[in-house]
C-alpha cells in the first residue's frame, strides 16, 4: 500500500512557479529521501505534505485518501524542522508532551509516552531542563521526541541535521534510521546532503528546480544515474566529466577528446560525430603504468587512507582515487585505465543517459 501519493502537484507563490507537475508514490514503512540542491522545492513539497502550505494544483493522498483540504493536525503526521522550533519557555518534558496535552490525553498516558520517547532518544536525564540548557544535538533529539511521542503515520524531516557538526551528524544519521526501523512508520526526509541520502534512504527522489530527475534506491542512483545532473550530484569525490565526439573509424568506438582518445563501451551503436559527455567516477579509474591512456599530473591530495590524484586529460580536469600513497611530481605523466563497465554516457544537449 502507498502511504503517500503525489499526483500532478504544482505550487505557485504569487506569480512564481516553484514546481509544475510532481507525481510519485511512497510505499508504506519506507524511508524516502527528497534530495536536491538548495532552492529546488524540497521544503515546499514537504510543507504541502504537512498541510502548512496549500497545494496549487494536483492531489496528495495518504493511504488512498485525498488530504489536500485536511488540517495539519488531522493528517496524523509529525514534522521535525531544520531549526527544531522548540518552545523555549517550556521544559523538555512539556515540549515533548505538548501535542498530547493539546489533545487532552490522560495525564498518566502522557507521562508514559513522554518517558518512552525520552528513553528511545536518551533524553531521560534532561526532561526537567529548558531547551536553552541543552546542546545542539540534544535539542535536535527533543525535536524528534516531539515528533515520535505522537506515534504518527508519517514522519516528515526537513534537513534535521544541517545545524549539527560533522561527527554528531554521522551519529544522528544512524540514530534516525534506527528509530525509523524500530517504529516501523513511513518517513519522508529532506536533505541537500547526498551522503545522508545514500546512507539512510530506502529510496531517493532526486530533485532539481522543481522537477524530479530520478527516483530509485541509493544503489540504482549511484550505479545508473539517469542524467548528468544526478551523476554530478551523487557520489563523493564527485564524478569526472569529459566532453568529446564519437569516432568509429577504427574497430572499437572511441571518444575523441581534443587530440586524445578514450575507449567507449562496446555494443552501443553510436553514430559517428555525436557529441557526448563521458562520466567516470574517480574510484572507477585505475592508476595503471601499462595503460596507453595518459594525462599530466596536476597535484595529489593525501587523505591518509587514499590518494586523490588530480590530472589533466585533453584539457579536462580529472581525478582518480588510489588506495596507496603515490609520489609523483606535478607535470609528470599519469597512466590511467577507466573501468568500461562503470562508464556513464550522457547526451551533450539533453544531459540524458544513453547507455
Amino acid at each position, binding site marked *: 500500500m502507498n502511504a503517500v501519493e503525489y499526483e500532478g502537484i504544482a505550487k505557485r507563490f504569487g506569480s512564481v512557479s516553484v514546481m509544475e507537475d510532481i507525481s510519485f508514490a511512497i510505499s508504506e514503512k519506507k524511508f524516502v529521501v527528497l534530495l536536491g540542491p538548495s532552492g529546488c522545492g524540497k521544503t515546499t513539497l514537504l510543507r504541502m505534505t504537512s498541510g502548512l502550505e496549500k497545494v496549487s494544483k494536483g492531489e496528495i493522498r495518504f493511504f488512498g485518501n485525498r488530504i489536500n483540504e485536511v488540517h495539519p493536525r488531522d493528517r496524523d503526521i509529525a514534522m521535525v524542522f531544520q*531549526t527544531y*522550533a522548540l518552545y*523555549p519557555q517550556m521544559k523538555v518534558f512539556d515540549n515533548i508532551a505538548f501535542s498530547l496535552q493539546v489533545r487532552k490525553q490522560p495525564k498518566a498516558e502522557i507521562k508514559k509516552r513522554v518517558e518512552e520517547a525520552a528513553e528511545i532518544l536518551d533524553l531521560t536525564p534532561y526532561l526537567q531542563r529548558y531547551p536553552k540548557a541543552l546542546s545542539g544535538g540534544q535539542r535536535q533529539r527533543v525535536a524528534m521526541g*516531539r515528533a515520535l511521542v505522537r506515534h504518527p503515520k508519517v514522519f516528515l524531516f526537513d534537513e534535521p541535521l544541517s545545524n549539527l557538526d560533522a561527527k554528531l551528524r554521522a551519529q544522528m544519521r544512524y540514530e534516525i534510521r534506527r528509530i525509523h526501523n524500530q517504529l516501523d512508520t513511513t518517513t519522508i526526509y529532506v536533505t541537500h546532503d547526498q551522503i545522508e541520502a545514500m546512507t539512510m534512504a530506502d529510496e531517493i527522489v532526486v530533485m532539481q528546480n522543481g522537477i524530479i530527475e530520478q527516483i530509485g534506491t541509493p544503489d540504482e542512483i549511484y550505479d545508473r544515474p539517469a542524467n548528468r545532473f544526478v551523476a554530478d550530484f551523487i557520489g563523493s569525490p564527485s564524478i569526472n566529466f569529459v566532453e568529446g565526439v564519437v569516432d568509429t573509424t577504427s574497430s572499437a568506438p572511441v571518444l575523441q577528446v581534443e587530440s586524445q582518445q578514450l575507449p567507449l563501451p562496446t555494443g552501443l551503436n553510436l553514430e559517428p560525430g555525436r557529441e557526448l559527455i563521458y562520466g567516470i567516477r574517480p574510484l572507477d579509474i585505475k592508476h595503471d603504468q601499462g595503460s596507453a591512456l595518459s594525462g599530466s599530473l596536476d597535484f595529489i591530495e593525501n587523505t591518509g587512507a587514499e590518494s586523490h590524484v588530480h590530472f589533466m586529460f585533453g584539457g579536462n580536469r580529472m581525478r582518480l582515487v588510489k588506495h596507496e600513497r603515490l609520489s609523483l611530481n606535478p607535470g609528470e605523466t599519469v597512466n590511467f585505465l577507466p573501468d568500461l563497465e562503470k562508464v556513464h554516457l550522457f547526451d551533450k544537449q539533453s544531459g540524458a543517459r544513453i547507455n
Partner: protein
Amino acid sequence: MLSPGQRMLRALVAWMVVGIFFFPIYYWFTIAFRIDKEIFEIPPLLLDFTFSWQSFEEVFGITIGAKGGLEVVPGGGNYYMVPRLVDSIIVAVGSTALAVTVATLASYALSRMRIPGQHHFVFWILSTRMMPPVAVAIPMFFIYKNFGLLDSHLGIIIVHALMNLPLAVLLLKSFFDDIPQEIDEAALIDGASRFLIFRKIVMPMAIGGIAATAVLCFIFSWTEFLFVLTLTQTSLKTVPVVSTTFVTSTGTAWGKMAALGVTAMIPAFIFILLVQKNLVRGLTLGSLKQ
C-alpha cells in the same frame, strides 16, 4: 584595552551624562521640600534649604507630624489632589491594558496572517499618527458628546488607548516578527488552535516586548494633556491637567506644583518597576532563539 586613565575618563563622562539628566529631577525635589520664600533664592539652595512638608500638606490636605506621623485633615485641603491621582492611575492603567490587549492581538495577526495588500497596513496604521492631535480634539469632543462619553473615565481610557494603538501595534509586530514562524507551525501540527498558540507559545515569548510597549503606553497616558483637557469637565482630571490650577492670576505656586509632580512620579515609577521584571525576563528568553 583602555588604560586606567581612559577608563576613569569614560566613567567620568558617563556620570556627567547621568548628572545632566538627573539634576532637573533633583532640583524639582528640592523645590517640593522648600518653604515658599526660599524657592527663588539666588544662588539656588541645593542642599541647605529649610526642609518642610508644607507644600505636600497643602496639596493633599494632610498634616505630617514632626515624628513622621500622618494625619488627614477633614475636608481634604484646598486642592483635592488625592482623587486626581486616583483618576490618573485609573486612566493610565485602563488605557494601557486596553491598548496592549488590542495591540497584542492585532500585531500577532498582522505578523502571521497573509492578507492581500498587507504591506499597506504599516503605512495606514502610522498615518493615523501623522495629523496633530489638536486637529482631532474638537471632532472628538462632539463625538464624545453624542455618545455620552464626555467627562468619563471610560472616555479618556478609550482616547488614550486609541492614541497609543498605532505605535503599540508596530512595536509589538516587530517583536512577533522576530519569533520564528516555524514555532507556530510546529504547534499547529501538534494540534493547537491559533488562539492557543498565541496564548501558550507566542505571547510568553514576546512578554518582554509587551512589557516595553506597556511602559510606553503608560507613560503617554500618564503625561497626556490635551485630550484630558478638552474631553473632561468636572468628574475627573488627571495630574498634568490639574497641575495648571497652580498657575493663577496672582502667581504660580511652584512649591505645590513640585510636590504634586514628585508624588505623581511614584505610581509611574512603581508601574515601571513591576513591568521591568518582565522586560528582563523577555530579554533572556529572546537570547535562546537559534
